[in-house]
């Protein structure tokens, strides 16, 4: 039923970073030179055997790859349908997939002679991963984080400080991830000669969506070889949560050419799409331009970006990577949304039944899998990207449970 290794038929983006009408380079003129240089250098190093080998070495010895695929047998049996398999990105160093990309960009920053790295962060996972690689390579690190997120994610702020990074609170706008990204861009435009901006997701101006995708694609490439060995074949569905969309793009991309494998991205429906308190850009937004690329955005009639809501800070973003916008329009991937309550129910189930505490972000993907599995035959296979672990979410979950909002 599965074809052999598919031909390379997925040569997106074009040379100026377009995925159909999406992507591109929408930045102020001052940054164009740096982006052109980055594009050229990355084009060179992605084909450079030495760079590729160093990246692979760091992923194995520092990050701890490959991460296993794991058959959630008890949970699958309980649900009584298709078999759920988990790609265990939660087992990476720093506890999430974010480190894959940070390692790649840090190695590139070194090649470009940049001694200072900056990053934006929402939940703090990308900030921690950036601070980690900066410590590993002895680089100065500044992380921009919305003051509202700093309050919600105090533990990750402490971790970044331990790792030697400076966390700068952002007080503008909604004081969350999008504003942290604005502030990081302002830093970059000011210090463009000395500074490498490590963007944490598959968004931003070209070449970031492509570059972050490439670095994260190690997730899907490992699955391509692991699933036939462990499960006997490739999955019927690959399911991943989507905020900016880097873990989803990482696991989807190698599967795009496998036409029999359905790809499902799961957005945050927050308190429900109808309430307006959500972060489901693909399900409920429309195309526009933000943070350097054209993509689906949550915006009002005047084109102002609106504040988003999700119980998981990592999905709390009004945009989404442009390649996801393209996959949606082309029909190759399908995008759905899961509410806070559904995600929390899946979070608790995963803890109790599998002994794994998942990140609230990943719990959205798990929730969709638990909805889908019972509708499919037992021999069906769902592969869910368990993109991170939930240690960082203890306070949030305790608060919700105390307020009696979550499932038991």
């Amino acid at each position: 039923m599965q074809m052999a290794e598919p031909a390379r038929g997925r040569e997106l983006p074009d040379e100026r970073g377009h995925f159909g009408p999406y992507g591109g380079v929408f930045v102020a003129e001052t940054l164009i030179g740096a982006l052109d240089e980055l594009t050229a250098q990355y084009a060179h190093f992605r084909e450079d055997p030495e760079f590729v080998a160093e990246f692979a070495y760091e992923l194995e010895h520092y990050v701890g790859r490959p991460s296993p695929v794991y058959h959630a047998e008890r949970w699958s049996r309980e649900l009584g349908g298709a078999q759920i398999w988990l790609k265990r990105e939660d087992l990476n160093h720093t506890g999430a997939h974010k480190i894959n990309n940070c390692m790649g960009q840090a190695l590139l920053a070194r090649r470009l002679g940049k001694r200072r790295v900056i990053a934006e962060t929402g939940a703090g996972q990308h900030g921690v991963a950036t601070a980690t690689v900066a410590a590993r390579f002895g680089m100065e690190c500044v992380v921009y984080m919305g003051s509202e997120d700093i309050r919600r994610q105090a533990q990750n702020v402490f971790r970044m400080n331990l790792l030697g990074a400076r966390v700068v609170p952002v007080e503008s706008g909604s004081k969350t991830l999008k504003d942290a990204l604005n502030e990081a861009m302002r830093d970059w435009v000011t210090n463009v000669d000395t500074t490498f901006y490590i963007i944490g997701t598959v968004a931003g101006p070209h070449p970031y969506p492509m570059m972050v995708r490439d670095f994260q694609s190690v997730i899907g490439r490992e699955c391509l070889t692991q699933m036939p060995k462990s499960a006997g074949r490739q999955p019927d569905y690959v399911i991943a949560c989507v905020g900016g969309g880097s873990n989803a793009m990482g696991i989807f991309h190698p599967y795009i050419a496998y036409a029999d494998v359905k790809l499902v991205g799961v957005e945050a429906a927050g308190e429900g799409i109808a309430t307006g308190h959500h972060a489901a850009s693909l399900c409920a937004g429309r195309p526009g331009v933000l943070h350097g690329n054209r993509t689906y955005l949550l915006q009002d009639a005047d084109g102002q970006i609106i504040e988003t809501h999700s119980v998981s800070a990592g999905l709390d973003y009004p945009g989404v990577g442009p390649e996801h916008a393209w996959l949606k329009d082309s029909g190759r991937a399908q995008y759905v949304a899961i509410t806070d309550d559904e995600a929390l129910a899946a979070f608790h189930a995963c803890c109790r039944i599998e002994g794994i505490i998942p990140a609230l972000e990943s719990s959205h993907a798990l929730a969709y899998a638990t909805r889908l599995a019972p509708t499919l035959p037992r021999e069906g296979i769902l592969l869910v990207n368990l993109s991170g672990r939930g240690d960082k979410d203890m306070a949030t979950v305790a608060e919700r449970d105390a307020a009696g909002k979550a499932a038991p």
Partner: protein
Amino acid sequence: MNRIDATFARQRAAGRTVLIPYVTAGDPSLAATDEILDALTRSGADIIELGVPFSDPMADGPVIQRASERALAQHVGLRDVLGLVARFRVRNPAMPIVLMGYANPVEAMGTTAFADRAREAGVDGVIIVDYPPEEAADFAVLLSARDIAPIFLIAPTTPAERMARIAELGSGYVYYVSLKGVTGAGHLDTDAVAAKLHEIRKHVALPVGVGFGIRDAASAQAIARHADAVVIGSRIIVEIETGAPADAAVRAGAWLATIRRALDTMSSKRADPVARAPTAGPGRFPT
């Protein structure tokens, strides 16, 4: 002839520097902006750049961010800004108005609809900060077809071959961003600006306006020695936000008048464009 071209031609003939104040529409209110436009006109503005509020002004420093937030708190959007221009145009048929903002509000309206409405309102030029020429070719054609100037930025990091391409697509003037940073930053280096302007003029025939970081008479004069136009934004917004909103227009006008006087008292600057090259003590403000 577009009002912008006419203004540069007239001021060049008179040996004067074109003075371009920037204010954000709707800060502190739409009604106040009506008054501010009139006050800036009376105080010697030659062209007015009118900022379209946006929720995520990535290229702007804290001052213009605050202006945008004050306008957005009153839900001022692109339609309101066009209405403001239309009202101004009834009072003043001559003053060129340039809209400056970000791509998303324009795309939300639709680029063709925006170009049509801007034309009807009497807009003369448009600067979209996050539309570099590569992404704005179609948009520039839409504007040019309606006699609206697409105005592009040149940065300290722009290489020579890009300058020519930018000049080809743009009209009216080019906006030289005088430093690596955001609007209102404090590290303007006049010597570096002079040297860069010399390079720009080899590739760009359009008039060159310089902005970002000009904050007083001395820096305005220093830049005016080399540029065709001086753009001042953040410093005027500081005047607007410091004090009672009711007197914002008076403060903005009074402050701009000091800059106008400083520019006009400079010794006859430029009968000959070659004299604008940075030969004589670039960037020194004589004491």
